[in-house]
C-alpha cells in the first residue's frame, strides 16, 4: 500500500508526544527510583482513578484490540467469549484482590511469588510461581509488538529485509528507554493518553461506520449464518456449550494471576481503590465488546475482497481486518489517530509486563537464590537491566521467529499461569494445602496442559470425552481441576507422612 502521509504524520506526532510524556513521568509523584518498590510499583501511590487508567491500559492490550475483532472476522461468534470472560473476571477480582492487596501491603510484598514465599515459607513453591509468571509473560510482550507491526504496515511504511522492521525497533528502543528511567510511572502516565485515544476512536467507529454501512441490521445481515451464532451443542454434550463458557471462565481466572495484572493491583494506594476498580473496569469490557463488533463491520465492508488490501491481508491474515476497516472508512487524519491508539496501546502493557517480569526475577530469583545480600540499590538496578533484557528478547522473537509460535506460546501462557491459582488465591483463605502437594499439582497441571494443547495443535479447547459424553473444555480450565485434585489428594498424604510445613509469616489481621 502507498504511504498515507497525513495519517503517518498524525501517527508520528502522537507517538512523539507520549514518548516525551514517558520520560517526564519520572518526576510524577517523585520517589527514590533506586528502590525496587518505587521503580517497579511506583511506591504503591496510585489512587482509584490512576489505577483505573493503568489497569485498563494494562489488561485491554493492543493485541486484544487487534486479535479479538480479527477472530470475530475469521471465526465469528466464538470470539465473543471475550465478553462473558470480562463479565466473570470482576466479581472474582472484587472478592479476592482487596485481600491480596492488604496482605501484600502489610508485608511489603511486590509480587505474587513474594506472598507465596511468606505464606507457605517455601522458596521452591515461590520459585515455581515466579518462573511461571516470567515465562507466561514473555510471549505476551512479543504479541504486543504485533499490534505495532500491523499498524506500521497499514500506514504503508515498508522496507526490504531488516529495514522493514526498523520502525518496530525504533518504537521498542523508545519503550525500553522510558521504562528504564521512569519505571511504572511511565506506563501509568501514557495509559491516560492511550485510553483517551482508544475511547475516541472506538466511539467514532461504532457510530460512523454503521452509518456508512447502512446500520447494524445491514452489518449483521452480511455475516454468514455459521458465524452469527455458536454451533449448537450436540446431544451427547455432558454440559451444553462447555467449550464456550470454560473458555470464558478459565480466561477470567487466569487474567489477574498474570504478573502485569498483579503489578497493577499492588501499585494501588488503598484496598478501596481495588474494590472500586472491580466495579469501574467493566467500562473497558464494554469498549472491548464494541471493538469485537468491528470484526463484523470489516466483514460487512468487504475488506477481504477489496483489491487494495490484498497484499496487506496476505501478510497479516485476519489481523489486517480492523486497520483495513479504518482505512476504508475514516479520513486520513483520523486513521492516524486510530493507529496511534493501537500502537501506544501496545506500549503500556509491554512496559508493565516487562516491569512485572523484572520484579519477579529480581525479588524472587536473584535476591532469593543468587545474591541474598544485595543492597536495595543493587536490587533496583538489576530490575532495570532485566526489563531491558525481557523486551529485547521479545523483539528478537517477533523479528526472527514466525508469528504463529508467539501465538501458540501465549496460549500456553494462559494454561501455565492458571496453575498458580491454588497456591496464590486459595492461599489467601487457607493454609490447608501442603506446600509440596501444591508444587506437585502445579507440575502435573503444567505438563498435562502443555501436552493437551500440543495434541490439539495449539487450539484452546480440548475435546474431552467421559463415558461416551463429550465435555469440550478450555485446556487451562480442565488442567486447573486436575491440579486441584492432585493437591487435595496429596495434602493428607504429606501430612500423614509428617512432611514438614513451612513457617507462615503472615498474620490473620494482615488480610483485613
Amino acid at each position, binding site marked *: 500500500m502507498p504511504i498515507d502521509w497525513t495519517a503517518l504524520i498524525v501517527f508520528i506526532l502522537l507517538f512523539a508526544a507520549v514518548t516525551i510524556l514517558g520520560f517526564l513521568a519520572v518526576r510524577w509523584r517523585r520517589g527514590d527510583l533506586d528502590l525496587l518498590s518505587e521503580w517497579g510499583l511506583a511506591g504503591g501511590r496510585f489512587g482509584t482513578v490512576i489505577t483505573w487508567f493503568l489497569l485498563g491500559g494494562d489488561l485491554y492490550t493492543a493485541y486484544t484490540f487487534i486479535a479479538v475483532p480479527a477472530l470475530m472476522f475469521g471465526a465469528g*461468534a466464538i470470539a*465473543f467469549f471475550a*465478553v*462473558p470472560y*470480562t*463479565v*466473570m473476571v*470482576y*466479581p472474582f477480582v*472484587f*472478592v479476592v484482590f482487596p485481600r491480596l492487596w492488604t496482605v501484600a501491603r502489610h508485608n511489603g510484598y511486590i509480587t505474587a511469588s513474594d506472598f507465596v514465599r511468606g505464606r507457605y515459607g517455601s522458596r521452591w513453591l515461590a520459585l515455581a510461581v515466579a518462573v511461571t509468571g516470567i515465562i507466561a509473560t514473555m510471549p505476551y510482550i512479543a504479541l504486543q509488538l504485533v499490534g505495532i507491526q500491523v499498524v506500521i504496515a497499514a500506514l504503508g511504511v515498508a522496507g526490504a529485509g531488516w529495514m522493514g522492521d526498523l520502525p518496530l525497533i525504533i518504537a521498542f528502543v523508545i519503550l525500553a528507554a522510558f521504562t528504564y528511567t521512569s519505571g511504572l510511572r511511565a506506563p501509568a502516565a501514557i495509559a491516560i493518553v492511550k485510553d483517551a485515544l482508544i475511547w475516541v476512536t472506538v466511539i467514532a467507529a461504532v457510530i460512523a461506520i454503521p452509518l456508512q454501512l447502512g*446500520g*447494524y*441490521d*445491514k*452489518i*449483521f445481515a452480511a455475516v454468514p449464518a455459521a458465524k*452469527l*451464532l*455458536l454451533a*449448537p*451443542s450436540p446431544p451427547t454434550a455432558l454440559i*451444553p*456449550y462447555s467449550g*464456550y*463458557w470454560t473458555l*470464558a*471462565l478459565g480466561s477470567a481466572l487466569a487474567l489477574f494471576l498474570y504478573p502485569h495484572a498483579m503489578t497493577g493491583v499492588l501499585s494501588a494506594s*488503598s*484496598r*478501596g481503590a481495588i*474494590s*472500586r476498580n*472491580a*466495579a*469501574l473496569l*467493566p*467500562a473497558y*469490557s*464494554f469498549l472491548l*465488546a464494541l471493538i469485537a*463488533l468491528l470484526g463484523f463491520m470489516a466483514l460487512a465492508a468487504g475488506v477481504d475482497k477489496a483489491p487494495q488490501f490484498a497484499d496487506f491481508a496476505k501478510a497479516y491474515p485476519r489481523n489486517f481486518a480492523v486497520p483495513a476497516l479504518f482505512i476504508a472508512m475514516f479520513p486520513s487524519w483520523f486513521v492516524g489517530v486510530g493507529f496511534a491508539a493501537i500502537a501506544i496501546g501496545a506500549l503500556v502493557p509491554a512496559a508493565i509486563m516487562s516491569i512485572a517480569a523484572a520484579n519477579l526475577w529480581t525479588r524472587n530469583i536473584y535476591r532469593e537464590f543468587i545474591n541474598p545480600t544485595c543492597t536495595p540499590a543493587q536490587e533496583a538496578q538489576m530490575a532495570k537491566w532485566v526489563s531491558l533484557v525481557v523486551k529485547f528478547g521479545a523483539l528478537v522473537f517477533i523479528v526472527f521467529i514466525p508469528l504463529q509460535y508467539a501465538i501458540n506460546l501465549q496460549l500456553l501462557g494462559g494454561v501455565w499461569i492458571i496453575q498458580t491459582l491454588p497456591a496464590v488465591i486459595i492461599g489467601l483463605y487457607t493454609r490447608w494445602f501442603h506446600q509440596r502437594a501444591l508444587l506437585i499439582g502445579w507440575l502435573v497441571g503444567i505438563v498435562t496442559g502443555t501436552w493437551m494443547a500440543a495434541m490439539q495443535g495449539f487450539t484452546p479447547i480440548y475435546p474431552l470425552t467421559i463415558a461416551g459424553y463429550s465435555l469440550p473444555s478450555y485446556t487451562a480450565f480442565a488442567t486447573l481441576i486436575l491440579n486441584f485434585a492432585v493437591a487435595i489428594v496429596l495434602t493428607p498424604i504429606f501430612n500423614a507422612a509428617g512432611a514438614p510445613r513451612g513457617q507462615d509469616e503472615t498474620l490473620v*489481621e494482615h488480610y*483485613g
Partner: protein
Amino acid sequence: MQGDGSRRPQSRGAASRLWYLLLLIPYAAMFWVASYNRAEPSWAGIPFFYWYQLLWIWIGSALIVIVHLIVNRGRT
C-alpha cells in the same frame, strides 16, 4: 487501621457476607449459554446473542457496586 479495634465490627459479619452471593448471578447467567445463543429478539439490528451479553457487563458492574456499598460501608 492497625490495632485500633475498629476493624470489622461484628455487625458486618455473617449477615453482610450473604450479600456476596449476589455476585454469583453473573456466572449463572453466563454459564447458561443455551438461553442466549439465539438471534431473536434483536435490538436496533443487533442479534440477541450480542446485546444480551453486552448488557451483562453493566449488570455485573451494578451488582459489584451494590455489594461494595453494603459490605465495605465505612471503609476506605
